[in-house]
């Protein structure tokens, strides 16, 4: 009875919170309407937010972007990843209309990015290396940006305060850019990108240089926009991209080399990674899994105890395979660490860009890792030449 009452109270509290949030949202919408700011339409399914065709950009004789296509649907949260110098920031800058492409075409919500009159308030950008205006306080700058977006007088002030609160800078409204730490300046930059209710938000490395708390706060904001707004996020933090994005585009040497939804990208339905602890399983354990239905092959990396199970298209649901493997692990008296569905974005990144990461000596996933000759599970899987059971140091050349 007491538990029921507590549960009911908790539900009531949550409902009250939601009601309060809805009231605040409605009040903000009313304020915006009063200030003359148009409400933004919700994303239309199947419509493109960003359409890039054969985009080229050169600095002098150096070609940075080499004619790639990119289509971002409305409501998509796209992670834009790639190694340093791959062309991420340049792509952002061309899409935002800061740089003039040397070839190809960019359309944002069906318009050229230079068509400010139509894109004003609909497209917002967090540029990577822009500095705030030095001699005006951060609140004053945000009021200025809000005024340019159509907020007038008090509404502009309130909008500036709202976005500063949103990024955790409510106590620093009176500060000037010169008095801000790198992280605070970055958060102010983010705040300006959230002014109004933009339909397309481009965020170039939004969490770089932020402390873990602030970074989480920003990730939560981006996650809350999922499906509601089109967000393109560039980041070197691949775990973050995997967490918050619905889609990923990988750019390498000025070309998009892979673009798709994150589940396909990370082969969520094709691969399982299970960390086994407490010892090295016997060969029969791996044989047993490999001969069970739907499993293509098994690879094992003893250093950290990771077992990768590649599934066939006709495999039973991944949850069932996990259940089967977990049962067998306990049968042989070992314990479990982490279980991952699909490979990590980081591994895909290393594989596709041909760069060493975990796949470097002692690592996993990149070329030359546990799947290579001399490694565990090389040709023929575990037990292949120099495969499962070989001496330590076999985690790849």
């Amino acid at each position, binding site marked *: 009875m007491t538990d029921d009452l507590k549960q009911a109270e908790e539900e009531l509290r949550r409902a009250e919170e939601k009601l309060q949030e809805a009231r605040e949202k409605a009040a903000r919408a009313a304020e915006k309407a009063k200030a003359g700011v148009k409400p933004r339409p919700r994303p239309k399914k199947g419509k493109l937010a960003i359409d890039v065709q054969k985009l080229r950009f050169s600095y002098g004789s150096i070609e940075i972007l080499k004619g790639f296509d990119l289509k971002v649907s409305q409501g998509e949260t796209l992670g834009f990843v790639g190694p340093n110098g791959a062309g991420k920031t340049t792509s952002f800058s061309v899409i935002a209309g*800061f*740089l003039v492409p040397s070839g190809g075409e960019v359309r944002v919500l069906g318009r050229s990015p230079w068509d400010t009159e139509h894109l*004003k*308030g609909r497209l917002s950008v967090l540029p990577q290396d*822009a500095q*705030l*205006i030095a001699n005006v306080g951060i609140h*004053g*700058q945000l009021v200025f940006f809000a005024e*340019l977006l159509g907020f007038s007088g008090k509404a502009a002030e309130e909008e500036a305060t709202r976005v500063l609160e949103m990024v955790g800078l409510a106590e620093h409204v009176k500060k000037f850019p010169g008095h801000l730490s790198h992280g605070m300046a970055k958060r102010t930059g983010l705040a300006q990108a959230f002014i109004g209710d933009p339909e397309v938000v481009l965020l170039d490395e939004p969490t770089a240089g932020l402390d873990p708390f602030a970074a989480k706060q920003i990730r939560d904001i981006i996650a809350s926009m999922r499906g509601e707004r089109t967000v393109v996020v560039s980041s070197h933090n691949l775990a973050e991209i995997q967490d918050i994005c619905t889609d990923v585009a990988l750019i390498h040497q000025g070309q998009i080399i892979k673009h798709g939804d994150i589940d396909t990208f990370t082969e969520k339905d094709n691969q399982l990674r299970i960390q086994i602890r407490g010892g090295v399983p016997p060969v029969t354990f791996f044989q047993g899994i490999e001969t069970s239905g739907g499993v293509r092959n098994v690879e094992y990396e003893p250093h950290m105890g990771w077992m990768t199970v590649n599934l066939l298209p006709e495999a039973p649901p991944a949850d069932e395979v996990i259940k089967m493997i977990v049962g067998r692990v306990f049968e042989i008296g070992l314990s479990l660490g982490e279980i991952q569905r699909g490979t990590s974005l980081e591994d895909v990144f290393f594989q596709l860009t041909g760069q060493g990461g975990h796949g470097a000596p002692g690592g996993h996933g990149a070329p030359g890792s546990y799947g290579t000759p001399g490694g565990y599970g090389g040709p023929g899987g575990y037990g292949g030449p120099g495969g499962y059971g070989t001496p330590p140091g076999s985690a790849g050349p």
Partner: protein
Amino acid sequence: MALPVNIQDTLIVTRFDYRNLVRSAPGVIFLVVYLFVVVQLGAISIDLIPVGASEPSPMCKLPTGSAPDRIKDKIQRSIPPFSNVSPQAWRYLECERPVVMSVFFLIALFVVPFLVLLLSFNQVAGYLHRRSIRYILPKTGRAELYLGLFLSNLKFFTVVSGAVTAAVTLGWLIVGRSLPLGTVLLFSAQIFAALWLSAVPLIAFMAMMAAAVGKPTGTFFLGVGFYLAVDIAGGLISRQTEYAKVLFYVIPLEVKYWFAYPSLGRFLGAAVLMLCYTVAYLAIGWGFLRRRNV
């Protein structure tokens, strides 16, 4: 037909950048130097007013061939602000206007453009160099930003120059009580208008340079260097050939002295020319900015 720029956005940019300018290094340096130079100039001219003088133009009465008259002649021939003014204009400035104010007027016409260059080199270049422009561009167009920054510099100059001219005029009125009130006020208004009209194209000139160069230091040295080079080269070459005087019209060097002529037509002509210079510089600058990478 809709205007190619959004006036409301332009004015928002102007208002904001004015706040930025007042606290910026170029703004503060301009303010200090302008106050120092022009107020000093005003103070010197006020000191020249003879105690109890009843004539509006005491220098006009200098005995011909006397030492001060010879010095005046020498100045008139060799110092640019004086040598650029015709004998006809000299007579007007000496005899029909309080000559102390005329001295201030001519020196100010010579000096103020340099100070304007000092103020306005950072207007667009600062935003480009620090890439602050990237925060602004998705929210308004390049044209609105360009024009708004130009107007904020003009507004700043107008406020500073207006306040200083008013202060100096007050000094003339208090010290030179014998000077006719109407003449002093009218001439002060003429001085202010002439300085203002001379400054407008130079602010546009620096906006153009900034749009082309994109860096404050480069803009400053290129702008000031170009101004000085034209002035010096024009002065040197025009001694050899009259045609070289055309150099003086690349920038409004010669035209500004038309404001000192005793003719309303010439004053208005100079004003129109100054506006033409302004439009031309802004248009060329816009040509650079509209498709440049920022």
